[in-house]
């Protein structure tokens, strides 16, 4: 079963910083909750694992990530990931196109469009969880991403968009190392999300 | 990792002790360790009721009960219904009313009906159809199972009187 997601997240950093960070696959993967890159096969291919957790439910996937179509002009790239879960009875693949767009006040937005496809037991029994899982992956990924780029921005030039006229980009939530339904973080995310638009097509 | 536990409970009135992993399901303990193969496995997702046993006065699906949860419990299976060579009214009723065909769901069905009649000695057809809905049968279409339970209810109440 397939689900499409299109989401946009505001970043409190300049487009250049955002784009620089986006091209660093290890760093980006580091923002992926529950993800670990275990091996760098070559420039564009990595092996790794992703652990997806939702309440009592937990699945662990091992597979490959491939980076494609890095386009400096549009500041976009494509991340293809696929793998099978530790029991071999489920499989998942994701095709994500990520882009850094300009935003007001010299800041930028992270724009993500992805298609997640599930096979096997995960599709048969996990279907109803998919939207919630994907939502939370997105939110926490964006949250972590925002935290990283903000830090990078600060370390390079001091906080972005300082001074009047700057959009009030809410400070991103604490980074979550593993994807889970975190009762704690959820509320935070909801606040942080306020004012963002998020569209989902099943 | 998982250390084994010794679990003691009463099975059809007899004391039993088993040493099991925490994850062992009661249905497997009964069938594999204690040679009680009356309760059957049908769906493993607690929908079919073929594995139904009576646990401390409750009908439960033993595929969804951990053996370690049964410490000091009283377990009754189909094998425990016949008393000193005399069939339980339900066992008789299922034969008299042709309440079984392949026989696979029968032990769970009878064990469930046993508890139902303890709680409601004189159930209507509607009661029976509602309170027996945790046990699937593919052969009989349930109609004769309802009759069998009613047969037993009558026999038991007349025995009371």
């Amino acid at each position: 079963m397939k689900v499409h997601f299109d989401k946009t997240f505001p970043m409190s950093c300049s487009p250049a910083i955002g784009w620089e960070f986006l091209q660093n696959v290890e760093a980006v993967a580091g923002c992926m909750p529950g993800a670990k890159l275990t091996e760098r096969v070559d420039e564009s291919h990595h092996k790794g694992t992703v652990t997806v957790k939702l309440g009592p439910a937990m699945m662990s996937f091992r597979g490959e990530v491939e980076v494609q179509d890095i386009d400096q002009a549009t500041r976009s790239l494509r991340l293809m990931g696929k793998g099978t879960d530790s029991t071999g009875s489920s499989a998942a693949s994701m095709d994500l196109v990520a882009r850094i767009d300009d935003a007001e006040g010299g800041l930028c937005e992270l724009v993500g469009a992805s298609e997640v496809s599930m096979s096997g037991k995960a599709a048969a029994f996990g279907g109803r969880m998919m939207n919630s899982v994907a939502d939370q992956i997105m939110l926490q990924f964006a949250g972590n991403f925002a935290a990283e780029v903000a830090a990078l921005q600060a370390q390079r030039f001091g906080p972005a968009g300082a001074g009047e006229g700057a959009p009030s980009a809410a400070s991103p939530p604490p980074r979550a190392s593993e994807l889970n339904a975190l009762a704690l973080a959820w509320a935070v995310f909801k606040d942080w999300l306020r004012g963002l638009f998020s569209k989902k097509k099943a | 990792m998982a250390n084994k536990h010794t679990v003691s409970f009463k099975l059809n009135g007899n004391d039993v002790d088993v040493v099991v992993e925490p994850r062992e399901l009661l249905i497997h303990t009964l069938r594999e360790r204690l040679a009680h193969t009356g309760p059957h496995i049908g769906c493993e997702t607690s929908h079919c009721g073929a594995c139904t046993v009576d646990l401390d006065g409750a009908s439960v699906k033993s595929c969804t009960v951990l053996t370690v949860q049964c410490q000091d419990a009283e377990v009754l299976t189909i094998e425990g219904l016949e008393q000193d060579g005399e069939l339980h009214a339900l066992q008789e009723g299922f034969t008299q009313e042709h309440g079984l065909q392949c026989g696979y769901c029968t032990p769970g069905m009878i064990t469930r009906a046993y508890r139902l009649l303890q709680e409601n000695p004189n159930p209507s057809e509607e009661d029976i159809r509602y309170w027996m809905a945790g046990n699937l049968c593919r052969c009989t279409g349930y109609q004769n199972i309802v009759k069998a339970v009613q047969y037993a209810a009558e026999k038991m109440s007349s025995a009371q009187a």
Partner: protein
Amino acid sequence: MIPRQFDYHAPQTLPEAIALLQKYGDAAKLLAGGHSLLPMMKIRFAAPEHLVDLGKLAELRGIREEGNELRIGAMTTENDLIWSTLVQEKCPLLVEAALLIGDPQVRYKGTLGGDISHGDPANDHPAIMLALGASFVLQGSGGERVVNADGFFHGLYSTELKPDEVLTEIRIPVPPAGTGWCYAKLKRKTGDFATAAAAVLLSMKGDTVEEVSIALTNAGATALKAREAEDSLRGKKFDDAAIADAARLAMSICDPAEDQRGNVEYKTAMSGEMTQRALRTARERAK
């Protein structure tokens, strides 16, 4: 269909249970009736390293009336609720819901607290609790706190419970005498989750709605309180138009997940239809 290995703990007291949760944190899961968790573990969607069985905590099972509240232990089973004359008399909505849960065997094992704590919007009690305005007693290392059902459910499998907290008691304000009630549930078969379901409490003053409470099951990531639908009815004459309006407003907050029970359109429409059914039945029962 066999769970992964885990360690089993059967605490004899609540503090023991909480201590275990503290010790093992996220690696531990509470075992109540087991009919949500064990099937997930058998298909290996869940693999907790530690199971903490609340089954031996007698203090968590029981129903009593205190002041104007029903106080129900979290480990009280569905059949306990169904057969309790106190609940039948004071809160028939709870009995009606329990009778529509699972199947007979499941109702012997399934507990009120387990059904709520699991945080599954497809479970029936979350909506019932929202409709009743219940509150939950949570006990953990930080001591005890009492939270409202409204706000307790954060998302699919996600609740206000901290990893080291246990839901110990459910407190239900007894609805005023004469309150009408109904839990209307559409399901494919015995043992199934709701395609859609609506819980309603309704008190009337003559032909007009005095107070109304509406909550929906399985219509989104959590059970939903249909506030606008409630507002639209309060103080209004209870007629077909008002019911239809309320149903439309209830549908407007639905965001169900498509599955074998139906697509988003059907499930949303059924949430509306169950709302109508529940309102009509509650009206008949209101005095």
